[in-house]
């Protein structure tokens, strides 16, 4: 079972997730950023359900493990959809929303097909292997997509401050996980320290998004000179 630190971080992350949706509703940003808010609401729902299952069956129980990893895969798909909605926002002025949607669906299907090709030889627990593989692959796809999106923001000289804040916080979030995972593989002895970090990262994204919705008005603009320009 998690200790006091784990519970505090978990409660804080739940409060922040709820805070994102509340801030978005208060600032009338629910519809323009619908998928981001859906992701946060799904995270909150998953956290409450995980808490119930954890207390009923325990951390190492099969019930909690299955629920945790299956819900994590679903949440990763929600996060992917949120990311593609940010793509749509950035490319909205080019009227390329249909192309973005087509590309997002194609990439999701291609990632699912690739994941299935990797695990299809697993006779036992094929679905579990597939869910695990798809979740991790989508995670790395999201990481690369975020950097592509940031490059597009620089190239198109996007100036909407709230949108830039949302994208940058997503980039930091993905990068923190990847860096932490790479460090864990390089230094397995530091695993006991690094295992405390992912729940902390889980607090970062809702905190940054809540800040973006609460403090940055929709019509706020950054001066283009403050963004690095790719020529």
């Amino acid at each position: 079972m998690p200790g006091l630190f784990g519970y505090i971080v978990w409660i804080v992350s739940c409060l922040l997730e709820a805070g994102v949706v509340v801030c978005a509703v208060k600032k009338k940003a629910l519809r323009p950023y619908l998928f981001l808010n859906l992701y946060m609401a799904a995270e909150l729902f998953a956290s409450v359900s995980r808490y119930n299952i954890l207390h009923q069956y325990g951390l190492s129980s099969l019930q909690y493990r299955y629920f945790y990893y299956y819900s994590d895969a679903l949440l990763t798909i929600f996060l992917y959809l949120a990311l593609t909605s940010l793509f749509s926002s950035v490319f909205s002025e080019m009227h390329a929303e249909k192309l973005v949607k087509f590309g997002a669906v194609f990439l999701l299907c291609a990632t699912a097909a690739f994941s299935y090709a990797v695990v299809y030889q697993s006779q036992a627990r094929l679905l579990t292997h597939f869910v695990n593989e798809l979740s991790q692959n989508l995670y790395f796809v999201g990481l690369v997509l975020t950097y592509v999106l940031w490059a597009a923001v620089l190239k198109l000289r996007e100036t909407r401050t709230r949108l830039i804040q949302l994208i940058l916080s997503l980039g930091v979030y993905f990068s923190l996980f990847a860096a932490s995972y790479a460090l864990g593989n390089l230094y397995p002895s530091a695993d006991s320290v690094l295992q405390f970090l992912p729940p902390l990262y889980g607090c970062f994204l809702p905190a940054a998004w809540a800040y973006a919705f609460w403090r940055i008005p929709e019509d706020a603009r950054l001066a283009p000179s403050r963004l690095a320009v790719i020529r």
Partner: protein
Amino acid sequence: MSRKLTVILLAMMILVGAMSLKTAVTSHNDNGAVMMANGGAPVPPPLYRNGGAPVPPPLRNGGAPVPPPLR
């Protein structure tokens, strides 16, 4: 049509890039750890690690030292 083909090409390039990155990051992963965590819930042990026994070294036929690769 060419715009759709361009989108497909870009999507494939992103997929290849993401899988290359995953291979680079996880190439030394022998502890069965998985990277995924949405939210602040405590991460349970991986689903499909059968038992907690140490992982044996890779199979080799005989104990002779391994020569350098053939050129």
